[in-house]
């Protein structure tokens, strides 16, 4: 049981980092990035490819972070010529591009077969001790990501980002460099996403192009929206809730005696209904965004 709970915890933390990254883009800055999985994929493949050549994972994280950061900044700059809806479509195309490169560069990425046997963390430990150590590592990383995301959101830079979301023309007229601000927030989020991808590849010990489908992005979108768009804590709460919902509902079948395939169908249905319920009752998410009103009143 402990191992299973630790597994849920590890997955939840991995997703929470991803959600924090997406929240900075979609929630705070209003950048509808439908290609989030591209940055996750860059991180995952960097770690997996270098690992298959015997390079230490830390190098993989660094390389993945740099590539994703540069890619993020470039995608952010695309916003200069594309208005938001068109930009969103461009990000979707970028994610597909990354997936197709992964699918077709056989010698490099393992092609459709993907890369398996990626060495995990704490290989010198085993069993519950290893899971505990892995969980502690990823939890620590989540705390760091959370602190960074929160500082960005609550600082002067974060207020500029919110202004860009609410009224980009006003932001520009106040002499804020909108394109640069967008490029910087994209670069930061991309680095976070690539770190999440690196951990994902190490935990699952496998990465393949089938894990880079747009669905992976939409799942994280759901976490951010359910948690509360624009709220840093909300992103973590959303990721936790949805991971627990997916894994917790596995136990439903232990109480009622129905066939496995029906149980599986009902489980997914229950997840859908619960999520819809949350959204209808709490339209702004579980932890709604707080925009500072005190300042304006003073």
């Amino acid at each position, binding site marked *: 049981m402990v191992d299973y709970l630790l597994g849920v915890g590890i997955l939840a933390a991995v997703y929470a980092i991803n959600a924090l990254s997406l929240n900075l883009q979609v929630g705070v800055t209003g950048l509808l990035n439908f290609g989030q999985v591209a940055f996750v994929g860059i991180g995952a493949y960097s770690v997996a490819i270098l690992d298959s050549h015997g390079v230490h994972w830390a190098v993989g994280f660094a390389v993945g972070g740099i590539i994703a950061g540069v890619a993020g900044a470039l995608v952010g700059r695309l916003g200069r010529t594309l208005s938001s809806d068109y930009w969103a479509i461009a990000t979707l195309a970028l994610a597909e591009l990354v997936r197709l490169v992964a699918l077709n560069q056989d010698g490099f990425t393992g092609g459709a077969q993907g890369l398996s046997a990626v060495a995990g963390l704490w290989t010198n430990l085993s069993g519950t001790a290893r899971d505990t150590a892995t969980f502690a590592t990823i939890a620590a990383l989540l705390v760091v990501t959370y602190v960074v995301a929160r500082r960005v959101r609550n600082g002067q830079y974060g207020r500029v980002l919110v202004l860009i979301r609410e009224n980009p023309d006003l932001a520009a007229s106040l002499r804020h460099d909108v394109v640069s601000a967008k490029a910087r927030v994209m670069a930061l989020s991309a680095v976070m996403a690539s770190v999440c991808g690196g951990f994902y590849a190490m935990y699952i010990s496998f990465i393949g192009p*089938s894990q880079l489908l747009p669905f992976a992005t939409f799942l994280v979108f759901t976490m951010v929206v359910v948690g509360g768009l624009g709220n840093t804590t909300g992103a973590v709460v959303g990721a936790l809730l949805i991971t627990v919902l997916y894994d917790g509902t*596995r136990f439903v079948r232990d109480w009622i005696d129905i066939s496995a*395939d029906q149980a599986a169908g009902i489980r*997914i249905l229950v997840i859908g209904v619960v999520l819809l319920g949350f959204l209808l009752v709490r339209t702004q998410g579980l932890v709604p965004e707080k925009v500072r009103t005190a300042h304006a009143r003073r």
Partner: protein
Amino acid sequence: MHLRRNRTRALGLAIPLVLALSMSACGSDSDGASTKKSALPAANSSLKGEIKIGAVLPLTGTNATIGKDQQRGIELAVAKINEGDGVLGKKLVVDIEDSQGTADAAIQAAKKLVSVGKVSAVIGEYSSGNSIPMQQYLQGQGVVGVNPGSSSIDLRSTGELQFSTIGLDDVAGKFTADALTEKGYKSIAILAPNNSYGTGIVDSVSAAFEANGGKVTTSGLYTEGQSDYRQELNRLKDSEPDAYVVTTYGKDGTVINKEIFELGLTDKPVFDIYMSQDVPDADPKSVEGRIGMDVNSTSADGQAYADLYEQTYGENFISSFNGYAYDAVTLLAEGIESAGSADSAAIAAALPEVSKTYAGVTGPVVLDADGQRSEQPYVIAEVKNGEIVPQ
């Protein structure tokens, strides 16, 4: 003002997302595996206690139909075993978890079976991308894994506790290449989907055919879900081989078979790998006279099993994967019986020995040194009057 805008924004985003998430479940239709035409035989009442093993199958998601068929194979095997003497005088229970067709859910499912259910063996999955990490996890936990559906050769190296009851790509590739050589073809052009299944087939057939002294003029990997494949097919045609080798399924198969006929590729022999995947859905005149290979389900034991399946579920096999799942359960049960305990290491030690004499519904399942199925009976067949007729 911005609050209201935020609210509409959140809802506008969220509702399509939740719908998209629930849609992934739609693969599992209401007609579940449990919808039986006739009930399975009841368990022998003299069995005391339970022996539990696990299974991780894609019951929802894009491969839900295969998962449901694998579940049927498991149900039939469990019913047959418990109707008789059970395992070590106990009732066999297979705890089935959903993999949702994704690697992380498959790992979580296996984790639950191992860590909460304390099973000593886990059967699964279907996609190689899920089976490989799952078997690596099971190996790390010291739990036996049996793959009843994936064919990537990477499964050879997942560890000494890991096995397969389905022949991997190298087994199918060797059979196909030998059949092509025997038919006197000196050169072939191959078309397969660009996914782990397709690339595995292309690599293994090419390697074995070239080892036989043949030449592969070109190998095309097509992107699934297109409305037109003329470009890929013309490339095959332009390479002027003695024969075309294709493997395809689903909606893509229907389009490809139509275009093969229209472009005149049928002037030369077309060899179809796993022909039952695409021939039944094709326009009969486009596949008339086609030759190909498929798994053999016509062995003596296989026929009785096919009858039982039809009698229980009121339809013929919906895929060829139920049989491998059936053999996985039965082989594990014999392994546990022979080991005298449900201890993982003891089962793993017993399985290769038991497999030598095991008569599976998919034919003999002799496990090699890597724990993989070393032989699998395939048949060469031809399409005559729209029917697949074994040669």
